[in-house]
């Protein structure tokens, strides 16, 4: 009982109707234009990225060069826009260089924690069984310990430095990804379109890679963008407490740590690095919120 499909003449050209669709980038900017906060966040991030890439060429002074004759100069004196610190180093230059450290830490932590957490989340959520039970118990245990404290303890044990603070943050941060991605996978698994794939005869791995993974892209992007801000603030806190990035590296956190002893005499030491952290976190958060709002509505359709 084979009934053939009606023949379609071979001359039929397959038209591509993509022409009248917006490209992804155009859509991105059109959506961005609708939100003030999104634009602000985007601009802050853009500036941050630019100065962390080109910072070393635009700094007016060597950020590491100490000059005791110029120590604790207030802002706008001697060509020092934001003044100098207790060793006579230019604060403006140090903040610019600090941006690079924050960006490196934020991005690499999100990359490591995100990748690891996502993998765990997918394994846990898709294959379930005892693997899921074990992994989620671990996540539960870790989540039952304050993030910042965990990072501090780990960092104190494994030692300071840029690499180690990234490792500490990643160890502290992967669980959020694992938790969120797992619940996304669980929700996706129950979706009718996944059942439809099983009914079609798509293999388990086909379903995972072709149907579940692409649908995880959005939650991963949203979560990552929101986590970067957390990581940057956490790093600053850890460095402020004397762990993390060590002097003389100009991280915003340890600048505040060094400056806090001069709080009664020289306000600028603690003011500007803090503002830098705040603006960065603000930009990342605003952008992340905007991303979540637009992508979420996109997910839901119209």
């Amino acid at each position: 009982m084979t009934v053939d499909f009606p023949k379609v003449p071979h001359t039929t050209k397959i038209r591509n109707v993509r022409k009248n669709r917006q490209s992804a980038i155009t859509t991105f900017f059109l959506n961005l234009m609708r939100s003030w906060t999104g634009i602000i966040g985007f601009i802050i991030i853009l500036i941050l990225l630019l100065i962390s890439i080109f910072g070393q060429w635009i700094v007016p002074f060597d950020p590491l060069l100490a000059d005791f004759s110029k120590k604790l100069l207030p802002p706008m004196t001697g060509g020092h826009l934001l003044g100098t610190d207790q060793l006579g180093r230019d604060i403006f230059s140090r903040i610019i260089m600090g941006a690079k450290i924050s960006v490196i830490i934020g991005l690499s932590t999100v990359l490591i924690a995100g990748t690891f957490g996502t993998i765990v989340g997918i394994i846990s959520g898709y294959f379930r069984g005892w693997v899921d039970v074990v992994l989620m118990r671990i996540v539960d245990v870790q989540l039952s310990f304050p993030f910042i404290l965990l990072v501090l303890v780990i960092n104190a044990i494994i030692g300071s430095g840029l690499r180690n603070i990234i490792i500490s943050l990643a160890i502290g941060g992967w669980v959020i990804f694992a938790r969120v991605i797992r619940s996304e996978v669980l929700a996706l698994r129950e979706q009718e379109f996944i059942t439809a794939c099983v009914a079609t005869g798509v293999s388990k791995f086909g379903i995972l890679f072709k149907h579940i993974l692409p649908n995880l892209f959005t939650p991963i992007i949203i979560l990552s963008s929101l986590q970067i801000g957390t990581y940057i603030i956490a790093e600053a806190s850890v460095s402020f407490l004397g762990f993390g990035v060590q002097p003389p590296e100009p991280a915003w956190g340890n600048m505040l740590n060094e400056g806090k002893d001069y709080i009664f005499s020289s306000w600028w030491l603690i003011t500007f690095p803090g503002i830098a952290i705040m603006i960065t976190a603000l930009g990342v958060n605003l952008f992340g919120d905007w991303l979540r709002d637009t992508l979420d509505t996109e997910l839901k359709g119209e």
Partner: protein
Amino acid sequence: MLDFIIKRLIQVVVVVLLALTVVFFLIRLSGDPTALFLPPDASREQIEEYREMLGFDRPIYIQYGEFMVNAVQGDFGQSLRSKEDALPLVLSRLPATFQLAISALILSLLIAIPLGVLSAYKRNSVFDRISVALTVLGQAVPSFWLGLILIYFFAAQLNILPSGGAGSIVHLILPMITLAAYSVARFTRFTRSTMLDVLRKDYIRTAKASGVPTIRLVGRYALKNSLIPIITLVALDLGTLLGGAVITEVVFAWPGVGRLLMQSLMNRDFPIVLAGVFIVALIYAVINFIADILYAYVNPQIRVK
């Protein structure tokens, strides 16, 4: 309900034991433990002697077993510096931390819930916009920096509040505000969005259709529905609050567990670190446990079962 409580209690125990295990192995795996326990200028003989004394020459699983057996009995050894017993030392600092954390929590809830409700009720008004802007800003300000700025203004400039230390209620004001700031921002924002969600629900429309005035709708009805997710968030955030307490304690020289833990980490005084981790994990697990029960109380769908 009873087996729910028992189940959660078992979970608390597991969490605490696992937290200890992880920190124990992290410390052991991060290098020669004896070196960590002794000042860097110790002689070779001293190290060997110490190693034997602390039993580090034995296989690690025996050390682990012994540590856990002792830990369960509350014995974490002595501080390497002051030679005080570790756990009692940590416990003696606990009231100060509680004082700070609880006052900050109460302060933030007192501000955040009314603010969030009002913001949702007057959505898109000037008041709402300002409150949203402040919450966004509040979440971006690192708490230790806020602490420094407060010290600068109120201690250094105005000289009306102490910059650190403990003792009287005035000492509490700045640390409490510092610690509460982030939570205020987060809770306000969450209360607002939860309220907005609830106000869109079918059952709110039903109440409206029975002639309930908006004020009562928001204050009496929607608020109770919103409490369930708010309690969940507050419980989850207590960890952040405790973590923030550590930093705040350091900034304001507040004599709590956090400051002790920080000093011990600096000094590599690991018995105290372990005792501190034990206490923090225990507190956090217990808080979550209480939150779960509270949650069941507010949510009749769980309670009635």
